[in-house]
């Protein structure tokens, strides 16, 4: 029954207007569709997923709309069982034969409503250059159990996915990734160097203070701008952690090593920081 019945339900979504824009009906009018899909259990959800095309050009707009509507619906208070069923069904579709386009869409719905139980399935996508960003964004939205997936994936990654995952570990302020951040400071890729500096600032890594501050003062251009920002963040986080001595060292380094006549606007910022650090 499922595929035909589900197709009938999905088809109840109103068509687009002539211009291709979407008007929509009330939640009350949509609930029978959403409840109907959920009533069919995991098979109901995966039947809608099976309607997704590789390319989002409007042909499968009703299936995409229904999945997203259910994602919002099961996020309501008191819908825990329906949410668990829905996200389990979505996660089961990742990493298999489903087209990359459809998997990307499924990952984005898990970004909306997924839980820690979705993390392993999303983690498997981090090694896929086409899906890494969507998986990382979903994991960062979910937060719970995300850090383990990023840590596990990082050692084998190169290029764009490596940057995506390293930055994600910075977003999560993962102190256990300190060595990975430090290693990135010496990378040939500017974005990786900056992600490393920012990650170290996020975790208030006192042992990296001199290296991050040197990056700020010994470089120029964009690298100097962002490394200075990381230095100030590191100093602030060290201050918040009670490590005034190292924070003061960063501020002094920023003040003493700047090129005469440039970055004068930073003087006030660093001087104020130094005062807070008791330096």
């Amino acid at each position, binding site marked *: 029954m499922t595929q035909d019945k589900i197709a009938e339900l999905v088809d109840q979504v109103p068509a687009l207007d002539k211009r291709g824009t979407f008007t929509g009906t009330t939640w009350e009018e949509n609930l029978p569709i959403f409840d109907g899909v959920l009533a069919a259990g995991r098979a109901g959800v995966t039947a809608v997923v099976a309607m997704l095309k590789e390319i*989002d050009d409007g042909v499968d707009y009703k299936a995409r709309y229904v999945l*997203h509507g259910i994602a*919002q619906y099961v996020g309501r208070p008191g819908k825990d069982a329906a949410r668990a069923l829905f996200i389990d069904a979505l996660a089961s579709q990742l990493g298999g034969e489903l087209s990359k386009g459809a998997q990307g869409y499924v990952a984005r719905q898990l970004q909306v409503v997924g839980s820690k139980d979705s993390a392993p399935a999303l983690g498997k996508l981090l090694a896929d250059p086409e899906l890494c960003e*969507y998986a990382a964004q979903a994991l960062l939205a979910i937060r719970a159990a995300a850090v383990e997936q990023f840590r596990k994936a990082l050692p084998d990654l190169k290029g764009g996915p490596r940057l995506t995952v390293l930055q994600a570990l910075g977003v999560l302020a993962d102190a256990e990734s300190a060595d990975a951040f430090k290693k990135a400071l010496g990378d040939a890729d500017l974005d990786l160097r900056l992600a490393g500096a920012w990650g170290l600032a996020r975790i208030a890594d006192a042992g990296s203070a001199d290296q991050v501050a040197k990056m700020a003062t010994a470089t120029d251009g964009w690298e100097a701008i962002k490394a200075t920002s990381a230095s100030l963040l590191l100093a602030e986080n060290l201050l918040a952690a009670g490590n005034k001595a190292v924070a003061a060292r960063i501020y002094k380094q920023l003040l003493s090593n700047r090129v005469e006549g440039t970055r004068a606007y930073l003087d006030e910022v660093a001087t104020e920081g130094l005062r807070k650090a008791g330096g």
Partner: protein
Amino acid sequence: MASRSANFNRRKFLGTAAASAGFFAVSPSSLFAGPKRRSPNEIYGGALIGCGGRGPSTYKEMTKDLEVEQRAQCDVKFVGKADNKMFYTDFRRVLERKDIDLVAIGTPPHWHALISIAAAEAGKDVLCEKPMTRFIAEGRAVADTFKRYKRIFQIGTFGRFGESKNKNSILIHKIMRSGLLKENPGVFVKSGGLKVKEWSGRVNLAPQTPPANLDWNLYLGASPWKPYVPPRHGGTHRGYWDYEGGGLADMAQHTLDPYQWTYGKDDTSPVEIEAYAPPAHPEVCAMWGWIEMTYADGFTLVLESGEWGNKYDRKQAHKPVLDDLDEDSRKKLQALPDPEPLLTFAEAVKTRKQAGGNAEAAHRCAILLHLANIAIRTGRKLKFDPVKEEFVGDELANRYANLPMRAPWHL
């Protein structure tokens, strides 16, 4: 997701962007000669980032009452035109220049926060087109950065300057800020004019190869990677969640910013939000009926589209008046001073004091747009903590308040 051709183009554009970054990693030293100490009448160096649509008007606003020499124009559609002297595709190269003091940002909103933050980090003052941000956490980051670096920020909407000189508005402002109202009876209703259908996105378009003059990867920036379809760029971007937030986000900062000042809400946000709308589309902004937002003191703000569903009929508009106060409170109110005049961008740049539409105030106004859109997108009544700037007891709604960014971009 990308078609084969779109994937090909993605790789091609990523390659182009990477090559560009490498090429310009070592910038001409002449660009880094430090600016001389400025006398009050000296000329400021100006740059416009985001040259289409509202860009030129935003730049013009930035130069009002200041001596500004335009030294750079930057747009992701300048591929083939960029000479990295006056014309740029990559805003990072513009911000590296130490002879630029003022930056006007006219890009789509998904770039506003990141470019504003980077500009402040590079020591520039900023006039940024509205709406200020794409999501709530961006605004907090902008406000904190401008505070940290002591730079000037002004949002590109100016209605509050007139409102702050209007006698009736000053009276309402004083009543609202006085703390003398026992129960706040104020209800502000904005009905219509929010371009809901006009800025609804189109769903039925097949991905195409981006135009040769457009750096699509750089255009997308921190937003999720999507294949190129023409309406996602060039004004019609307003109809997509990834870049703006429909007519509501586009128009409501204009509409609400003056009244946010009048009603004295520059330092707080609503605590309850409820929307009447259909289930939202995942990609495009679409129709909604009304949104009701209530502050902790009872003041209610209503946006009504007039373009979908039933009319709003819960509360009547009411401006707080002297009659809402008792006799004793009216006397106390008369003794209170009028609010300080708001500084224009030019005045703020010259005096190094906050502009009238500063980052903190602009962020509070942008929060209103985001709260409204998140209520539409989640389809449920939300509670918000104006201090933590988080939804209360709704982890899923909070996912919209702080969206993950695509590397290398982050707050």
